[in-house]
């Protein structure tokens, strides 16, 4: 069993600063050169309800939060009730005795907070003070942390923190000394990784209309785009988003859009347009539980199949999903490069669990490519020149040459055609581009394999992190196979697997990856472990489900 994991949960109402407290805790662990994984759970509301943040930390690689915590701090009764079973053996529950009754250590957090203005917002600070006590941090260090992390009302915050610190110090006995790790990592959210990956490859414009859980990428660029030279536009709706992005790509601007499933529905016509005019645009989809509005702030992987054939008609489509926050960085970069290499739209498929969690990551930006297309070399320009690999050179305005992109079927110049032979020929050109794409991907890293042992576990997207942590936690030796690319599906990498036992872990109710593996790669799947209640897997639960399934089915 994995040693040295320390988990901290802070729960309360939205607006009480639980997420902020989680971030502060994560930064604190990071300063200890430990690795962290932070997951934020929140309902779809602005104030009230129940939010919580879980931070798990370890001196070695950690891929998931745990739902058994060494320290739980809850600010109200609802949080108490929800988390009372999340206290680990030897763990501690600290609750706000003004707003909750229960077992554990009681501190009158609210009555202390009330002495200050913004009494509600201040309560999250109590969580940090309690954490400081628990892990043996001195008040001076606590003051520093508060100064650094809470910009406003520093004095009040410190005074309040001290009161809570003293109260907790009296009551907490089982203190824990956290071992220091040996490397200071960056603490990165999935959304930041995506933004940075696109920036590294040369993104020029990001278009987005707010939609959870893709919004943090929009906000990332809004906050950081300026110095990177990236323009962020929030138009009137998703249709405008996608069509503007295509327009921008016509000028040679690297453009990207972000949305969730519902917004992507509205972009499909433009997705098909991109396929036809051969516009290089990257579409980011952050998944949440569906159908329809579903559960906007939760996580799911219910849109794998939905994302494989969007837009009417036949054209090369690329879909890939990152298995970790680091991979989110590299994969975003690679996809932006690919859309320019092959002039066809691609989907970066991810989930709330990746986009809105953060973890320790090492990123080497110089490992990315700068998206550079095949450019016209001279002579008469034909936008849809029928080349061997199907990829026609690009040229951008202003130019003395005619550059015509066309949503109708067209000839090489881009003029509309209704000639049967030409229609077939242009289908063939796009098909060849599809083949070239497959050949290109064959030379790339399209599947991750982790560990050794049988049977194999297939998974994808952010669930990969849950699986890796579960195996680590449960001391399970199995090979984890994660297709990064879902379209074209890298069957060439999977040919060896056919004879074997395999199970699948994924977060949806119909087993979409399971179908894909069976249908595309002919892999016999013994069992699928599914979760579709909107919450990510807990590695402890998942470890035991894996053991169980392997025992019974394999």
């Amino acid at each position, binding site marked *: 069993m994995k040693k040295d994991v320390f988990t901290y949960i802070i729960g309360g109402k939205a607006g009480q600063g639980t997420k902020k407290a989680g971030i502060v805790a994560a930064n604190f662990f990071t300063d200890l050169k430990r690795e962290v994984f932070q997951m934020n759970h929140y309902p779809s509301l602005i104030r009230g309800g129940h939010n919580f943040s879980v931070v798990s930390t370890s001196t070695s690689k950690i891929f998931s939060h745990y739902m058994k915590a060494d320290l739980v701090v809850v600010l109200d009764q609802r949080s108490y009730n929800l988390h009372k079973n999340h206290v680990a053996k030897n763990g501690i529950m600290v609750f706000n005795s003004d707003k909750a009754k229960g077992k554990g250590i009681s501190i009158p957090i609210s009555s202390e907070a009330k002495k200050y203005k913004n009494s509600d917002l201040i309560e999250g600070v109590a969580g940090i003070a309690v954490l400081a006590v628990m892990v043996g941090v001195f008040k001076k260090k606590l003051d520093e942390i508060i100064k650094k992390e809470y910009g406003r009302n520093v004095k009040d915050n410190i005074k309040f923190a001290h009161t809570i610190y003293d109260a907790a110090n009296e009551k907490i006995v089982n203190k824990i000394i956290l071992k220091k790790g040996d490397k200071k990592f960056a603490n990165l959210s999935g959304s930041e990784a995506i933004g940075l990956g696109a920036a590294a490859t040369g993104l020029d414009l990001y278009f987005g209309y707010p939609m959870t859980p893709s919004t943090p990428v929009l906000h990332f660029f809004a906050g950081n785009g300026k110095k990177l030279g990236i323009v962020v536009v929030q138009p009137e709706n998703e249709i405008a988003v996608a069509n503007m992005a295509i327009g921008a790509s016509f*000028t040679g601007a690297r453009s990207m859009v972000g949305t969730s499933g519902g917004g992507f529905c509205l972009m499909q016509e433009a997705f098909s*347009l991109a396929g036809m005019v051969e516009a290089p645009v990257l579409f980011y989809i952050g998944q949440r539980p569906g159908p329809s509005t579903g559960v906007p702030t939760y996580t799911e992987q219910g849109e794998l199949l939905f994302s494989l054939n969007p837009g009417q008609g036949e054209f090369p489509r690329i879909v890939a999903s990152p298995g970790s926050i680091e991979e989110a960085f590299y994969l975003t970069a690679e996809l932006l490069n690919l859309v320019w290499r092959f002039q066809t739209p691609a989907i970066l498929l991810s989930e709330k669990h990746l986009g809105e969690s953060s973890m320790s990551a090492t990123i080497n930006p110089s490992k990315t490519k700068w998206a550079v297309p095949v450019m016209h070399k001279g002579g008469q320009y034909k936008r849809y020149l029928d080349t061997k690999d199907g990829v026609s050179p690009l040229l951008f305005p202003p130019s003395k040459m005619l550059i015509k992109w066309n949503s109708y079927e067209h000839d090489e110049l881009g003029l509309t055609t209704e000639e049967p032979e030409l229609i077939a020929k242009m289908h063939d050109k796009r098909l060849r581009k599809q083949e070239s794409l497959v050949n290109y991907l064959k030379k790339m890293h399209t599947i991750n394999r982790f560990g050794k042992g049988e049977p194999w576990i297939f998974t994808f997207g952010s669930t990969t992190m849950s699986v890796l942590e579960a195996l680590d936690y449960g001391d399970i030796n199995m090979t984890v196979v994660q297709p990064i690319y879902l379209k074209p599906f890298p069957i060439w990498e999977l040919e060896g697997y056919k004879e074997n036992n395999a199970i699948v872990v994924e977060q949806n109710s119909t087993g979409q990856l399971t179908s894909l593996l069976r249908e595309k790669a002919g892999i016999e799947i013994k069992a699928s472990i599914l979760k579709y209640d909107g919450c990510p897997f807990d590695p402890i639960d998942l470890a035991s489900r894996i053991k169980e399934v392997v025992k019974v089915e394999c």
Partner: protein
Amino acid sequence: MSADLSTDAEITWCPGCGNFGILNAFKKVVKKLEDKGVDRDKLVISGGIGCHGKIIDYVGLSGLYSIHGRSMATVQGIKLGNPNLKVLAFAGDGDAFGEGIAHMIFAAKRNADITVVVHDNGTYALTTGQFSPTSNKGFKGPSLPQGNIEEPLNPLGLLLEAGASFVARGYSGKIDHLSDIIVQAVLHEGFSVVDVLQPCVVFNNTYKLYNEITEIISKPAENFEEAVMLVKEFRDRMPIGVFYKVNKPVFHREFYGDWNPVVDKVSRNERLKLIEDFV
């Protein structure tokens, strides 16, 4: 680019279609713009789907033949990508005032520096003549053979309300006048719309009517209210000309001033450094 702005595409409009007038006017526009120092290679066009959209095939300028109702979004993207370009979207009435109305209203609201030329024939012509947002009440089309039961939109009034900084109406039967208007529209910095009365000889032949009732106005309205009144007249007398023109902050400039995303791109090295700082 061919000198006479033509292409190899066969023109498939019906003989006598008002779209010919727009095509001819537009060719004049390009030449007039050149005289005013706007190079034709800096002029990029887009169009929607419908009879009107075919103009994209017929004009020897670079551009993106877009989809139904989206050419206004397309050109906004082009403009944002490279603000050195002048962009012009052709659209049908179904296109601009039906499927794409939201893009029109918001392009006007944000004063995006684009020009939209609407081939307003009061019908969905290419799909065989159904009623459109500007069809008159009573207009008979195959999807409502008993006659349209809705009043037509007043699209220019709507766009004025939305904040359009240049609003004009032209008539495809008055080519020189029309080309003058479009030239002004393109030169105007900000959102400009030219609603072009375009007879469709098959489904809505309005030549006779428009020849009778159109009346060239000599100068724009003095103020917004007057412009609103002017665009409302479209029954007995149909004024054509530039109704309204005002200077307002322009979207891409408010956003990033004189900077240009594709021209002034931050270098790879600089970006990698910034990213390293971030992580």
